[in-house]
């Protein structure tokens, strides 16, 4: 399967060196970052890897951030993934550090004073159960913090721990970890970042559960991590998705647990759907099947 997936990913690589969501779409930072890592883990032709890395390095903006793609040029959440990809390239370490410092400056927002005042005055019950004072990272500047972008940023920054200023690093990472644990679903695992709405429990997703666990991999013995690992194991093997199974496989690899069942499931899923031709799932599968989990080790 690895050969086929690699061949498909290479055939989907755009002339500019990057990848879009599927073949034929314009290159974007998220998929290109994961694609570059996938090619490295699969031992692909260095020219293809260089082109992908070059796509990334050429698009870093003056402030250290990356745009989503060439159409949406503002700073984006995908910066964390570009950082993870380039932190593996010694010659690009300055770029990675610049991105890390930019990420430290970004933070999720809080609902305004007016919104809280209205809730207080009208005695309305809070619709969601989460601590809005805990700040992580948002998808878009100034918006609320959510699990997936926060996890990417935590992984990226933790990889640069020794090079970043200690105080803001500790402050941001410490609070982000609290935020992640606060958002955990009842019974373990994470969804996009809301465990309950109007007293109704929401359910975890395998991909975000794996990401939150990867982001908190330095706390393997915490109860939240342990129960969420069990949740992930049960969820991912029942999910018909290359993306979900690949993230789960990477996660279990990082936690030092047997991920053979996930690798087998990935091959079976690929045979059925080829992951709908989605380049991100292809890249993650290659990372899971090869030795790609190491790129997410913190």
């Amino acid at each position, binding site marked *: 399967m690895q050969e086929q997936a690699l061949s498909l990913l290479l055939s989907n690589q755009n002339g500019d060196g990057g990848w879009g969501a599927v073949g034929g779409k314009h290159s974007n930072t998220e998929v290109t970052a994961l694609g570059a890592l996938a090619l490295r883990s699969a031992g692909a032709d260095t020219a293809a890897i260089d082109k992908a890395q070059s796509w990334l390095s050429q698009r870093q903006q003056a402030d250290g951030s990356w745009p989503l793609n060439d159409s949406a040029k503002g700073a984006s959440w995908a910066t964390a993934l570009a950082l993870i990809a380039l932190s593996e390239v010694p010659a690009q370490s300055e770029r990675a550090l610049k991105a890390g410092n930019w990420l430290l400056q970004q933070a999720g927002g809080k609902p305004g004073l007016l919104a809280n005042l209205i809730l207080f005055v009208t005695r309305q019950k809070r619709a969601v159960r989460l601590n809005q004072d805990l700040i992580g990272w948002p*998808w878009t500047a100034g918006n609320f913090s959510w699990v997936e*972008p926060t996890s990417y940023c935590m992984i990226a920054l933790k990889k640069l721990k020794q090079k970043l200023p200690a105080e803001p690093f500790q402050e941001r990472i410490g609070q982000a970890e609290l935020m992640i644990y606060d958002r955990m679903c009842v019974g373990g695992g994470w969804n996009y970042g809301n465990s309950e709405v*109007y007293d109704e429990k929401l359910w975890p997703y395998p991909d975000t559960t794996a990401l939150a666990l990867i982001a908190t991999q330095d706390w393997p013995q915490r109860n939240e991590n342990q129960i969420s690992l069990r949740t992930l194991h049960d969820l991912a093997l029942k*999910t018909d998705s290359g993306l979900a199974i690949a993230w789960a496989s990477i996660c279990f690899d990082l936690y030092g647990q047997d991920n053979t069942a996930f690798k087998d499931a990935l091959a079976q899923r690929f045979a059925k759907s080829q992951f709908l031709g989605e380049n991100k799932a292809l890249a993650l599968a290659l990372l899971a099947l090869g030795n790609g989990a190491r790129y997410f080790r913190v």
Partner: protein
Amino acid sequence: MNRRDFLKASAAASLAPWLSACEQTPRWQRDAYTRPKRSQVAILAAENYRQPLRDVIQRGIELCRLETRGKRVLLKPNLVEFDPNGVINTHPALIEAAVDAFKSLGAREVVIAEGPGHRRDNEYLLTASGLYDVIKEHRVRYVDLNNDDVRLTTLKSGFTHFRQLYLPETLYQADLLVSMPKLKTHHWAGVTLSLKNMFGVIPGSVYGWPKNALHWAGIDGSIVDINSSLRLPRFAIVDGIVGMEGNGPLQGQAKNSGVLLFGTDLVAVDSTAARLMKIEPRKVKYLEMAGEFLGNLAYERIDQIGETIDRLQQDFRVIDTFADLKKLV
């Protein structure tokens, strides 16, 4: 008057002069929109998803005199999330029937596209919901609007802080956009129908999940600004065979309603759908705003074709926050 009513009345009184000043400046470009004098909405009975739904859809399309021949049709169902025990999404049987119906009526191409609001995992959503089988069997192209190429468009209305929005490139390649929502109540917006379903065309890669930037900017204003920015012809097919009441759009209860709604004026379709749910459309904030310029909200301006509202009306429960919507005017 209790404390809450007193505070509301006081706030309204103190804000009134400021609000009336604001009202003098319309929040949309007057020359960019023409509200139709009258709108037609077709209401057709459909008891379940096992019956031949293609015929019902074809009839709905024909009753609305929608031109489909040679068109590139983009079907936009609601596929926000999946719960094996819930009724969150537009039923795949209905989407399949719509593919069939538009092809039979001479559409040049039929594409299914969605940008799911909660999940980023398309393969899972499509497979679990049953839509993947439809796509495979009918060899229909599916586009993930969350990760499509994007193009910036300038808004001609201003109900949020957005002045421009990135829209998926696929929208610009279609001749007709068909909104196929589920008939549901919604815990933030009151109801979610064909206008709210357009949240799904907004690319999550730019605006985040669960379309967070839109919620942050104000859900009602965002619904109106998104819909005012979509300049291609649109049609609505509302899946009310089984709807959802209570804590929608994800965790409400199934409501067997046995109805499909059709129309080219999405405001008229949604206000009719609300009436079918025994919900007052003029109290749904975004419908009231959209009714000012995007389409017809008033009962008197809508010609109902097919079944009558009275015959198929069902009492949909809403959460306490929206109790006021049940006070029909």
